[in-house]
């Protein structure tokens, strides 16, 4: 387990370095001059030179990359071109909103998805199973932005039950929750479908496995078989999908936060791109990449803890 943990974290760091290099290359090696873009067409050469020097763009490429890496490692993601505020501060300011939305979306999706999946297993082959199947696939098939727009129209505009925009008053939990309900519904519903299908499939596969038959042949009770023998195996693919799911929920946040005009990391990126605010774009993308890598690595370690076969992947 220790070997696996060390190697898996080493791998995550390597991925992060590659992402950082790729991002740096993409933003700075494309034709064009960030300084003239930032200052606009009427900037004087002196102003451009000054900004170029301030951004460190007059240095050799290797120095630039090293600076970027060492700054990023120290938590310095640079400064906003327009407001001159540190990028990290801006991200941390809106991060709680996005995290709250992400956890709420995935939370209700996990609970409902696993329950529906188990129900489908209990009633497999019956009309309920078919109905749940159709329902799950519909949830997967309808694009989240359609759900977002229609739920906005129905619950916020027509019925006026929930707020249409914003993230609620700071410090007021009930208003924050009310503001997050519709976006969480829109993001989570796809995952309810995915998880219901996945849990059904992996539970059925595991319950049909030979070792479950062995456990039955030794007269172990059915609840004990499910809890001790089956669940531990059946939950593994779900954890893998959930880690990816958290990443995709972070990217869904980009459009959902736009649709619902919520302050958050997603809307931060959107507005930064619109204003060509490169340090903010890079900083936010880097931050989200790191966060995503962290979640995926944590999920991998959890799977390795549950399944000894995963642990031995790095052996031999």
């Amino acid at each position, binding site marked *: 387990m220790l070997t696996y943990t060390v190697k898996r974290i080493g791998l995550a760091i390597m991925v992060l370095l590659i992402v950082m290099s790729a991002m740096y290359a993409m933003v700075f090696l494309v034709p064009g001059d960030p300084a003239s873009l930032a200052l606009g067409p009427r900037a004087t050469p002196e102003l451009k030179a000054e900004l170029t020097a301030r951004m460190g763009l007059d240095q050799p490429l290797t120095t630039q990359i090293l600076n970027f890496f060492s700054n990023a490692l120290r938590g310095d993601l640079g400064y906003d071109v327009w407001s001159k505020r540190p990028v990290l501060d801006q991200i941390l300011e809106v991060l709680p909103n996005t995290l709250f939305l992400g956890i709420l979306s995935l939370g209700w999706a996990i609970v409902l998805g696993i329950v529906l999946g188990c129900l489908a297993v209990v009633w497999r082959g019956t009309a309920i199973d078919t109905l749940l199947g159709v329902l799950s696939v519909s949830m997967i098939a309808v694009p989240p932005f359609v759900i977002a727009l229609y739920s906005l129209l129905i619950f916020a505009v027509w019925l006026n039950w929930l707020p249409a925009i914003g993230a609620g008053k700071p410090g007021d939990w009930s208003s924050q929750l009310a503001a997050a309900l519709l976006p969480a519904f829109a993001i989570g519903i796809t995952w309810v479908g995915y998880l219901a299908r996945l849990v059904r499939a992996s539970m059925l596969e595991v319950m049909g496995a030979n070792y479950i038959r*062995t456990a*039955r042949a*030794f*007269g*172990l009770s059915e609840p004990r078989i499910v809890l001790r*023998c089956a669940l*531990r*195996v059946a939950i593994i693919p779900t954890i893998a999908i959930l880690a990816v799911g958290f990443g995709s929920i972070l990217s869904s946040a980009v459009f959902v936060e736009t649709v619902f005009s919520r302050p958050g990391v997603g809307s931060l990126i959107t507005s930064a791109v619109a204003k060509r605010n490169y340090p903010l774009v890079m900083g936010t993308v880097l931050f989200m990449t790191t966060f995503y890598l962290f979640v995926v690595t944590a999920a991998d370690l959890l799977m390795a803890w549950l399944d*000894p076969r995963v642990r031995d992947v790095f052996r031999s």
Partner: protein
Amino acid sequence: MTELLEVTDLRLSYGKLHALRGANLQARAGEVIGIVGESGCGKSTLASALIGLPAEGAALSGSIKIAGQEMVAASAASRRALRGDRVAMIFQDPMTAFNPVLTLGDQLIDFQHRSHLSRKEKRAKARDMLASVGLPDPDLALKRYMHELSGGMRQRASIAAALLVSPDLLIADEPTTALDVTMEAQIIHLFRQLRAHHHGAIVIVTHHLGVVGELCDRVYVMYAGEVVEEGTVDEIYHSPRHPYTAALIACDPMHLEVTDQRLPTIPGRLPDLTNPPRGCAFASRCVKAAAICAEPPPRKRLSPTQAALCHRIAE
């Protein structure tokens, strides 16, 4: 002697498919019986029915009595009460018969759930049992996961698991099929030792005639869901009376005189079990078939221990 296992007219169907069409067999304490037949003849179905775990959706009728207790009509709970206590099974594929995410030790402790020993005592018992089935370094094996053990070690472990609960009836479903020749010989050797110490009955289900000849006292030959012939190993091997048994023995590579001879086969295939013939199921492949074979074959007693299901045998 009392019959430890008594199966009478056991029928099992999956929807329209009649997998068992009236199987009869008995086993006494201390006896090792073999059930042989080609793939699809109903051997494994019979083995699963014996431990009360037929495949989902199977309709079962007839009678299975284990130590006098009826299993077919019994409730699921009382059938479960027999498993892992009076009855235990050694499974065909040791690769998949154990849980991949629990250590061997944990599983061997779980299997002793009926025992009132402490966890530590169960572990010690499991350790001793692993040692007695010839697993090198049993202490280490207890801490191992299944993918860390070899095929032969897993098969030894599954035999140890079944013996841990000291069952009256031990069922082994193709215990050597998944193993290479060397391992097979070792496992057969282990079963021979087992015969000497085990007081209950052992049922070995296999398509491998050599295994049966090595280990069993009596043999039941199955064809298309029926027992077509029964007898002692000597009778079945040296004076098979049913044409199917004779053909099966003739196909055994062990009987070839010269190695470059073509291996004989039985022409034709198993009858369609969704619509089984009224008469003898083997008639369409049988060299001795006659008009009378379209009628249900009678069971002819040929010796105190031998009987066959055939029209064409003179009693």
